[in-house]
């Protein structure tokens, strides 16, 4: 465009040239027409002749006047006098004529010379003019030449201009294509310069990913800084330095790209952060062994990551469901139903505790946590006893959370939220199990009447299954739906004592297997137990669970240790439930032939927990009271079975406070430990 303008301006100058040249021509012609002879000379000669003639005429008139005067005058003159006078007059005339002639001749000559000089001057001027003319001619020819040159150049420029237009057109087309690419490409795309700034062009998607419109010329690291955790800044800055170091291996740089897939945290307009998962790819552009720039590609993979997480969660859920299914299939259906029922009740109670507004306790929140803990703990025992290990795990997590809360001296209402979330999970798991049980029973039914394995020593009620003719289903009703009736749900299958035995045995078996121990339970249960109210059954079962658990975890030693101590590798736990004659009391004892209570360990733990001061000696009965303190445990680490120090305090609360009973302990180090519970029958 610029060239075009330049050319046009100079064209104007060039077209003005010919007119100047014409003017020069006319000047030269005028000069050439100048006369070279002395033209004023004839005029001067004519003047002289006229002057001489006038003088002659005057002289002749004078002579005639003299003649007349002489003839008329009375003076007589002789002829000689007359001739003398005539001769004198003629002589005078001649003198005058001569003087006039010479004078005039001198003048004439001078004029002639002047004229000659002028002629020479004119000659010179003409020569000069001719020279000037020649020069003009030469200039003119030069100009013509220049004009041709300019015309040629102009032509070339025009050509070039056309080429330029073509190239500009191509460039425009190319730019339009690039623009189209940058506008439509689904990735953030730009070139990063060695100083870390973003190049002039970038894709529209980049602005959308980084949520900013002003990008060109800005430092990329500065843009990323607020979006990433602070500890990553140095790594990323170092990485950019490495990218622009041509000696560094490209493959290595790809491998250790710290922004391969990162979560960028954008400030949300309503406060907080809005995370976005972004993949970055860095590609070096190398010229002459230096990294001229780095092409950066950004891809928003938030949806993909979410989907992956969802798939993974789905996969985990599926695995969990399969595990749950296996567990359910292995658990007696009556046990399962009882557990589901108990769990529902426990959850309702937990909700009730959380919903309570007023409390007389000095520390109502702590009191709530303790109560929920006990409920959860009992539920866990029940889950363990029937082999529902997934439930056991879930409840264990709830206990973990509650333990944290118990340790928190400044407990606030918000802290309970985490527990509520876990309880909600547990509730979901329960619901899922119920659904699954329904489906399984449906499945069982569609394959034929359900069979319930008879339990040793127990009279198991047959599963209540509606007889359905599988070959001819009721019209409009699907087979699997018809058979939803859950077996054994309507009536408890066994006597409470049988129920107790089986549950405690299952619990002990699970714990023994988990801890590598061997133990058998020897029962002595009098009929009085079955006659107790249901409330007693529930609380006493929890108490016996706890005592049996304690025996397995703390009392019974590992088989090798027992052999070393000269004992049978298989430990024995005697559980007796008897009626004290004459008194309206039931006595429950749980005695194991294990190591007894480790007073030193209890003391050390009490000192560590700050319950007692160091150096203070404790009487045995004081030691006993310690083990009933909430949160007290001698287990070195928390496991599913022990270590939280809940257990004996729950036992004390339930037996002493709720059943108005008493607890006693008897032990002998290395030989046995016996816990006894005495409660009124009603």
């Amino acid at each position: 465009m610029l060239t075009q303008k330049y050319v046009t301006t100079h064209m104007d100058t060039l077209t003005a040239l010919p007119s100047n040249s014409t003017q020069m021509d006319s000047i030269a012609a005028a000069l050439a027409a100048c006369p070279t002879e002395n033209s004023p000379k004839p005029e001067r000669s004519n003047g002289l002749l006229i002057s001489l003639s006038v003088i002659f005429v005057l002289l002749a008139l004078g002579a005639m006047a003299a003649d007349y005067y002489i003839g008329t005058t009375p003076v007589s003159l002789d002829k000689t006098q007359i001739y003398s006078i005539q001769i004198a007059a003629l002589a005078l005339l001649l003198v005058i004529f001569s003087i006039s002639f010479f004078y005039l001749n001198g003048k004439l000559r001078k004029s002639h010379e002047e004229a000659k000089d002028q002629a020479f001057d004119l000659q010179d001027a003409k020569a000069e003019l001719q020279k000037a003319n020649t020069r003009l001619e030469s200039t003119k020819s030069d100009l013509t030449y220049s004009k041709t040159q300019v015309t040629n150049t102009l032509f070339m420029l025009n050509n070039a201009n056309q080429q330029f237009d073509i190239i500009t057109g191509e460039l425009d087309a190319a730019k339009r294509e690039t623009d189209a690419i940058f506008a439509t490409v689904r990735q953030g795309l730009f070139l990063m310069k060695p100083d870390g700034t973003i190049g002039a062009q970038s894709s529209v998607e980049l602005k959308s990913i980084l949520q900013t419109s002003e990008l060109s010329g800005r430092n990329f690291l500065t843009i990323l800084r607020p979006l990433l955790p602070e500890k990553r800044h140095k790594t990323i800055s170092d990485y950019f330095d490495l990218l622009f170091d041509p000696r560094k291996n490209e493959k290595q740089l790809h491998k250790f790209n710290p922004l391969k897939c990162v979560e960028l945290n954008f400030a949300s307009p309503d406060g907080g952060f809005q995370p976005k998962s972004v993949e970055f790819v860095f590609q070096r552009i190398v010229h002459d062994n230096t990294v001229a720039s780095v092409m950066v590609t950004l891809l928003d993979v938030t949806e993909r990551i979410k989907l992956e997480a969802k798939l993974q969660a789905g996969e985990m859920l599926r695995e969990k469901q399969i595990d749950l299914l296996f567990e359910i299939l292995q658990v007696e259906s009556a046990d399962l139903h009882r557990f589901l029922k108990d769990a529902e009740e426990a959850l309702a109670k937990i909700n009730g505790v959380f919903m309570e507004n007023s409390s007389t306790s000095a520390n109502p929140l702590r009191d709530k946590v303790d109560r929920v803990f006990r409920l959860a703990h009992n539920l866990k025992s029940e889950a363990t006893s029937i082999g529902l290990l997934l439930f056991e795990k879930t409840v264990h997590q709830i206990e973990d959370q509650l333990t944290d809360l118990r340790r928190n001296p400044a407990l606030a209402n918000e802290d309970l939220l985490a527990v509520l979330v876990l309880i909600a999970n547990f509730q979901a798991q329960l619901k899922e199990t119920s659904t699954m049980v329904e489906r399984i029973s449906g499945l069982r039914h569609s394959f034929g009447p359900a069979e319930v394995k008879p339990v040793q020593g127990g009279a198991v009620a047959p599963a209540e299954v509606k007889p359905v003719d599988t070959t001819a289903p009721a019209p409009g009703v699907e087979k699997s739906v018809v058979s939803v009736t859950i077996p054994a749900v309507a009536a408890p299958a066994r006597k409470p004592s049988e129920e107790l035995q089986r549950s405690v045995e299952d619990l002990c078996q699970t714990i023994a297997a988990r801890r590598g121990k061997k133990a058998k339970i020897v029962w002595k249960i009098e009929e009085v137990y079955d006659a107790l109210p249901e409330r007693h059954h529930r609380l006493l079962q929890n108490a016996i669970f706890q005592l049996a658990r304690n025996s397995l975890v703390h009392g019974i030693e590992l088989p090798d240790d027992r052999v070393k101590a000269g004992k049978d590798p298989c430990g024995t736990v005697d559980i007796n439930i008897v009626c004290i004659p004459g008194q309206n009391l039931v006595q429950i004892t749980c005695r194991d032939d294990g190591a007894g209570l480790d007073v030193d360990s209890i003391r050390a733990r009490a000192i560590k927990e700050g319950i007692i001061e160091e150096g203070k000696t404790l009487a045995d009965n004081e030691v006993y009271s310690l083990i009933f303190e909430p949160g007290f445990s001698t287990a070195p680490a928390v496991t599913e079975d022990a270590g939280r120090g809940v257990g004996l305090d729950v036992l004390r609360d339930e037996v002493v406070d709720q059943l108005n009973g008493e607890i006693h302990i008897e032990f002998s180090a290395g030989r046995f430990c016996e816990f006894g519970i005495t409660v009124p029958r009603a």
Partner: protein
Amino acid sequence: MSTAPDVSHLKLLIVDDSMVMRRALTVSIQTSNFQEVRSAANGVLALQQFREFLPDVVTLDLTMPELGGIEALEQMLKIKPDTKIMIVSALADDATAIEALKKGAEQFICKPFTPEELNQALLEMLS
């Protein structure tokens, strides 16, 4: 590995605190091709060896007793800046790798490695 580089004029130092790993490296790299090979079991010993031996190529572990790999790397490059150092580490996070590369390591490979991986890295480092 496309073509084995000529290493007959090069000296190799293998630094790793695990004997098993030193052996694995020795076998994988086919050390017999090198002019001379030595090994060291920690950072301090590695530096001692380095000063005496002035190797051309070093494989360096990062987590070692006495003196860590990054520090050893820096000191080695101070003594002989043209040494080709390959980090062979169980720490595979990008921040560690970037730090090592920034401080002058040529290659960074993660344990466990395959002999092919190791030799490819060696080839890239020596070509």
